[in-house]
């Protein structure tokens, strides 16, 4: 489902003396439907960078990133938007929403965007918010005023609302209490059960052991830095 071949990335900082930083070279990995691959490596090894490249958030310098039959590395913006809407989900560590929109709407939005019936979308949103222990009294409020942990759970609910065939999870269990952490891991297992291909970053080793089928050490693709 996800096939990454020989991918490289560098950042050119034009306003800082034109410094060019090579951050990745030769990254290659594939994820089958129903499989969860954990990216590992020290902080700064490029786990999040690779994930952002897969989502089309960072440009890819060379190589290919195929999700289904779309190559994100060379696709037009319109194709990537369509891919994100229907096929590729991304749960980042931060919630970014229009202020003033109710939590229930925020969670239902990805479903409405793929044309799900409004009532069904809201029902799914209610179900996810309940499972993630967001009190019903908060559903009508904007999540921008919530605590960090609540925002993260809203973000997860939103990320899992639509059943994407491919998902990227950036630290989905970070800073969650035991109950919510268990719920999130169950959501990941359910996604695998319906044959989603998943790439995740988990600093929490027991969580990683529970859901990941394999680990890929990204530092293997980090170019040696001239010290």
């Amino acid at each position, binding site marked *: 489902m996800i096939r990454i071949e020989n991918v490289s990335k560098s950042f050119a900082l034009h*306003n800082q003396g034109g410094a060019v930083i090579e951050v990745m070279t030769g990254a290659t990995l594939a994820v089958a439907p129903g499989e969860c691959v954990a990216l590992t490596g020290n902080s700064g090894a490029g786990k999040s960078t690779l994930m*952002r490249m897969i989502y089309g958030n960072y440009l890819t310098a060379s190589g290919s990133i195929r999700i289904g039959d779309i190559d994100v590395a060379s696709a037009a*913006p319109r194709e990537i938007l369509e891919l994100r809407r229907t096929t590729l989900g991304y749960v980042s560590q931060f919630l970014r929403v*229009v202020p003033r929109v109710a939590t229930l709407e925020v969670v239902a939005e990805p479903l409405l965007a793929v044309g799900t019936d409004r009532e069904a979308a809201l029902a799914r949103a209610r179900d996810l918010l309940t499972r993630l222990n967001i009190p019903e009294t908060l559903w009508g409020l904007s999540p921008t005023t919530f605590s960090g942990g609540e925002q993260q759970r809203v973000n997860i609910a939103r990320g899992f609302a639509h059943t994407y065939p491919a998902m990227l999870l950036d630290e989905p269990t970070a800073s969650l209490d035991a109950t919510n952490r268990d719920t999130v891991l169950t959501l990941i297992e359910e996604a695998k059960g319906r044959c989603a291909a998943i790439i995740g970053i988990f600093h929490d080793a027991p969580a990683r052991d529970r859901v990941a089928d394999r680990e890929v050490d990204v530092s293997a693709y980090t170019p040696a830095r001239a010290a």
Partner: protein
Amino acid sequence: MTETMHSEVAHRADERAPAPLLSVRDIRKTYGSYVGCTDVSFDLYPGEVMGIVGESGSGKSTLLNCLAGHLAPDRGEVLFDTRAEGPRDTVTMSEPERRMLSRTDWAFVHQNPRDGLRMGVSAGGNVGERLMAVGARNYGAIRESATDWLGRVEIADTRIDDRPSAFSGGMQQRLQIARNLVTGPRLVFMDEPTGGLDVSVQARLLDLMRGLVREMGLSAIIVTHDLAVVRLLAHRLMVMKSGHVVEAGLTDQVLDDPQHAYTQLLVSSVLQV
């Protein structure tokens, strides 16, 4: 020439991808020896919102006015996929045709609501007037439609007979949007639509516009210098400097992984809150 363009677009439509709503080809506008904007080409598809950012004087408003038919470009084509006849070059079409488009399928939201509203006419009249311009004649239906739209932009129906001069800046801007959208346009041009509004009103307007884009399947081109606004509203982003497009792409990609020196400067200059 229109013939060949027509068949080319029709051909592309066959390959499952929808035809672009707007195809801009090689637009250039100069003021004497000064270049307003040049070498601008892009396609906008139905349901897409494109942001244009850049500092003042970068040519973004000149470009918007060329696209919306307010300024005649020196060169280039602006092909709009009309309902009746398919893609037509709006630069070369007759003035009455262009005026008809701007009353029906197009809308233009000005930065200053006073430029887009009739200040001496009631709020309901402002909305109804645009309906009458496309042939609506039944008073009851016009008033009903006006009330509906004032509700959608969150203006209480008790204010329908008040003039916009009695409204706050944020309300005027929402009224301008209602006036523009009542005829169900397919393409909306917006020039700094949230400029000059305080942040809470801005958030409300953003939420409103996002809902309208999703529900009505609108396409929009938004000129702004506010990167937070484009991040929340625009799917795609074009960055302009000195009349040239220096970078274009997915909004989050351009903002998070800017390639051009100017875009990097622009993104790193934003104050964090």
